[in-house]
């Protein structure tokens, strides 16, 4: 349907993952009292980044397969 939806999904989650993860790296650890002492921004940001990259990889593979046909 024109636009492979995995591209916007992948890009959004890569962006969000970098934002969250980056914030988790540099933020004051006092704010993590809320999340029971866990730097949830860093960990979950990493998870979002991995998911976003996986989506982009799938889209890239599909585009390559289409190109070969």
């Amino acid at each position, binding site marked *: 349907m024109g636009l492979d939806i995995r591209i916007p999904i992948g890009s959004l989650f890569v962006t969000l993952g970098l*934002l*969250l993860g980056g914030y988790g790296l540099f*933020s004051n650890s006092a704010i993590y009292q809320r999340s029971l002492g866990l730097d949830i921004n860093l960990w979950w940001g990493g998870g979002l980044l991995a998911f976003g990259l996986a989506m982009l990889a799938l889209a890239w593979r599909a585009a390559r397969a289409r190109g070969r046909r």
Partner: protein
Amino acid sequence: MGVAVHPAPIDWTIMGVYFAFVLGIGAALKRHMRTSSDYFLSGRAIPAWIAGLAFISANLGAQEVIGMAASGAKYGMATSHFYWVGAIPAMVFLGVFMMPFYYGSRARSVPEYLKLRFDEKTRGLNAISFAVMTVFSSGISMYAMALLLNLLLGWHFTTSVLLSALIVLVYIFLGGLTSAIYNEVLQFFLIVFGFAPLVFLGLKDVGGWHGLVAGLHEAAVARGFAPDAWTSTWSVMSSPSSNPMGVEWISIAMGLGFVLSFGYWCTDFLVVQRALAADSMAAARRTPLIAAVPKMFFPFLVILPGMIAIASTMHGGASGLTLPHKEDGALNYDMVIPLMLGHYFPNGMLGLGLTALMASFMTGMAGNVTAFNTVWTYDIYQAYIRHEASDRHYLNMGRIATVVGIGLSIAAAYAANRFNNIMDLLQLLFAFVNAPLFATFLLGMFWKRTSGHGAFFGLLAGTAAAAVHHGLTLPGGSATGIQGGWIAVRHLYASQMAQNFWTAIYAFGACFLVTVVVSLATRPRAEEELKGLVYSLTPRVRADGERWYARPAVLGACVLAGAIVLNIIFR
């Protein structure tokens, strides 16, 4: 109210990024919208997995998320009946048995199927009641969002309503159904990623699964129930007094599991439209089956937070999460999700959680708006106002209907804000209109003798039966009026839920009976006209070309087996 949150620049950035993507998707799809079929049906070109996720996401509005979390706190694990009994079987039935007629008939909407199968008046009745209902549902969604944003962020009602309306307007106006579907898929992942850490942190806080169960036992005993009343689904359903829902197993199985569930999942155009957009018959049939897989596990995402919140409130979680009280002293269950967002999420994650919440409100609206513009354009405008016009004309009408639909939703949101009773009354009327629908479809698809007069008068009889049953019964402890008993109080139910389930059962029964009797007394349509519309007159769809594991019957059986296993584990 104590649930206000304090977003930092990082949170606003995350929300901003999301909105930029939403609008960007609409803009990128604009050049693909050339015909009315592109706009209303996504050109029937959506792959099964996307249609499936959109199918489930269209139903996963914020009211669903907030409402199910509230029910989790109020009723505990038994809330999962709305998933494992009240959704999965109907979704499997839709994919395996009904989709061949919806998709195969090339009907562009559910009302149009009724026109093909029965007659003009049955279509008209369904199209008009559905169009009115979607506008109000979208308005209610906007209203609920505005109230919540006011509590959380202190935004004005008007700011929230206009902002959400504008964003939804732009992306649907530009990209039509495809835009709505793409955003629903995006929202599906956002909800999962936004709320899963909430469950993780909440569980950790109350001492893991064992801590949760111990807390819930205490909560149940404190309310005069058996200790397992909040942690089991079936074993407390022997009588209405043994569980906090106030229902017994037969009304769960028949009222919720059969009438209400099949009536919603199999006939509501809001969800069926997603399957009609699929790129082939096989994909259309797989759409609800694929959707059923995440649906099966949603209780752990949306009900568990409620159970955690009540366990922590009653038993004392390590970090002191406590539900606020309403003005009348009762616990404010609707605050489960907003409260937990603010309690557990530091800045950063807070932005993601708020984004997931707003996204689900907006897709709730968008789903209704796309269903409305299609039914308006094809089933009302093309059917009754301008029969013959160019395709471009109908495409433009769809865009106008989008603007008008959103305008009417805004009016509905303000009406809801001003007169709360009007919304209760409307939702009650919709329930009466919807309750009998599944009887009409069941008879129409599987009994070729069913006639148009039978369907029409059956629907009217079913709605009347629902209204009369509601007028004669009352949930114990309620005042007569909007709660029921407005004719005379002949029976008291243990809860409103029990009353709803039985209203649906009576409506279905009346519609079924009257449809059969009137059909037998009137002339059926010629069999040639019913090919592709009725089970016995349609060649079976062969699934030979597909790999065995992708066949609808196999997928459907696996999904059903999964739901049965979950019912047994959490009995």
